[in-house]
């Protein structure tokens, strides 16, 4: 019978406790309560993929989750990816391959491709495109993003460092 609840979750490795309205979405919790505005909101009904984050290591639409549902869980956003300013191989590959233009879709793209590369270390181009079908980009025509994913996969397998 609650309209507000106290929740404790891990965001980018740090424990966070807040009392929130039950109808607050995870996306708005991240952006407004924690001021982590790297998670972008496009359509707010689960179609565009801009708000995709990692929930216990798996991608999810943060606009389709209530913040209270993530009580006790672990959320990773784009802000948690780089280590003290050192980009991940995936982020570096986006720069090297022109995988972003306006950058609005990028945080969601990075979340999706992080789970892809965790799941399938050596994906085919077709697999990359299938995973990316859940994220819309209006600038790049996707080719740069696909190239970045394949490049990052190589770097993560130790075949050639991204940016080399």
């Amino acid at each position, binding site marked *: 019978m609650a309209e507000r609840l106290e929740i404790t979750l891990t965001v980018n490795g740090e424990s966070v406790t807040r009392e929130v309205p039950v*109808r*607050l*979405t995870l996306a708005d919790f991240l952006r407004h309560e924690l001021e982590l505005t790297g998670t972008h909101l496009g359509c707010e*009904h689960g179609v565009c993929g801009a708000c995709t984050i990692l929930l216990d290591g798996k991608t999810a639409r943060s606009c389709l989750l*209530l913040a209270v*549902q993530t009580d006790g869980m672990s959320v990773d956003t784009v802000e948690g990816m780089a280590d003290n300013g050192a980009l991940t191989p995936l982020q570096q590959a986006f720069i090297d391959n022109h995988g972003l233009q306006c950058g609005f879709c990028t945080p969601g793209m990075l979340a*999706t491709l992080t789970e892809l590369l965790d799941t399938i270390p050596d994906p085919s181009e077709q697999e990359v495109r299938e*995973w990316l079908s*859940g994220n819309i980009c209006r600038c790049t025509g996707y080719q740069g993003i696909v190239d970045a994913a394949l490049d990052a996969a190589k770097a993560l397998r130790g075949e050639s460092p991204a940016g080399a």
Partner: protein
Amino acid sequence: MKPPPFSYHRPESLPQTLDFLATLDDPKILAGGQSLMPMMNFRYVMPANIIDINRVAELSTVEETGGALRIGAMARQRDLELSDLVQRRCPLLHEALLNVGHVQTRNRGTIGGSLSHLDPAAEMPAVLHAHDATLHAASKRGTRDIAMADWSQGFMTPNLEPDEILTAITIPCWPEGHGYGFVEFARRHGDFAMAGAAVLLTLDAGGKIDRASVALTGVDNGPVRLPETEAALSGQTPSPDLFESAAAHASSVPGIEDVHATKEYRRKLAVVMTKRALGQALDRAQAGGA
């Protein structure tokens, strides 16, 4: 924040869930949230009480019981897609799951949610219809088994009372080596399909069709079986001509019309999808199937 105000309830067991359903005013079950949450964000639905069943562990089990798979309603689509048991015993379900939204939505979306939401273009209802599945519902008043044929009561209306919840689905498995096919037509991968067909097929020792089951999605208000197509196939030697004439019965479905396609176009697509799914199922049955 986008959804209108509601009270939030998080049961940890099925009995607790049934108590909430029996006592709360205007309750709505929140499972994977991939359909309910968009509808709440748009304020198409404004439930007074949300019952979040994500922590009811007993609703997520998948097990094999006497030639059938029993799948808990909270089993997530992505978990089912990756399940060895599903791939081995119910490969049609695996195949169809690859067309349900995207990895990012399948990570949360549940099989029970697909069935209870009952979108006309949903893949799960057609697969379960082809499999003659049985759905298990529960309420404070007791439990009830519902044949998939009786599940859809009209446009997005499942056969569930307001105080009932879908708890599990029993899917009778087809014999090892059966053929299966799932084909749908959507503008982009993962979009809602304008038409899709699910086919199960077995061949006898002489290569004739022993048994066929054919169901459509996206064409009509709910999932539909094609008994005339099935009868036309039974006992026959498979051939392109046979599939052509059997699939033609798909055009007799009344069909729905919306901004994406006219009903005439959907019926034409239904025939083509049926033919393609039959071809896929035959190839697999001849190669040893599942």
